[in-house]
């Protein structure tokens, strides 16, 4: 299995501001993934974060809005920039290990 922690667990932010979410994994992984879960919805992949290279973004997500850092093999950050109420979601990081993808506890973001 994988032990994944995220900070913060939840936050309430004002529109126009930015929030950086941290994800820490208990051991080294090549790829880390960021997903968004909008209220009452399923999960959507935002981007894949590889150490030493730029993140790869899925259709509908752009780096200016969701910049990602991956400074080492156990850590990544996702920033939600210039937030609007539509960004209110749960943001989850994920890693793959032994044919299974594990998810962190999530960061519940509310934008007012």
């Amino acid at each position, binding site marked *: 299995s994988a032990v994944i922690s995220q900070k913060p667990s939840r936050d309430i932010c004002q529109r126009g501001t930015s929030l950086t979410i941290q994800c820490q994994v208990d051991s080294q992984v090549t*790829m880390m*993934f960021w997903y968004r879960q909008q209220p009452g919805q*399923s*999960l959507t992949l935002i981007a894949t974060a590889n150490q030493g290279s730029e993140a790869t973004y899925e259709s509908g997500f752009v780096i200016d809005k969701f910049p990602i850092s991956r400074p080492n093999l156990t850590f990544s950050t996702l920033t939600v920039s210039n937030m609007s109420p539509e960004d209110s979601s749960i943001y*989850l990081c*994920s890693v793959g290990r032994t*044919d*299974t*993808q594990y998810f962190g506890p999530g960061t519940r973001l509310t934008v007012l």
Partner: protein
Amino acid sequence: ELKVEQNPLFLSMQEGKNYTIYCNYSTTSDRLYWYRQDPGKSLESLFVLLSNGAVKQEGRLMASLDTKARLSTLHITAAVHDLSATYFCAVDPYNAGNMLTFGGGTRLMVKP
């Protein structure tokens, strides 16, 4: 574009009854995952199905995969209240154990 469709989206059932959740997907893949999500919680991995004909069982839940039909099922036997949760299937279109495309989720309520 890969589409993953679950049905039903909502299921209310009595304790002791059996039911099946269906997951159809639109592209070839040999990897399919089932997750459980409790309200306000992250995703818990239930099953990883890695080949055509794979069948896995854990307690009252049994999952199967037919890659030719692009169909997976999650069968619930003699449901109990503790199974109440949202269940997601997810497909790995690259068969690499990482980027997942999720179905819309099935919210299951088991009534006493």
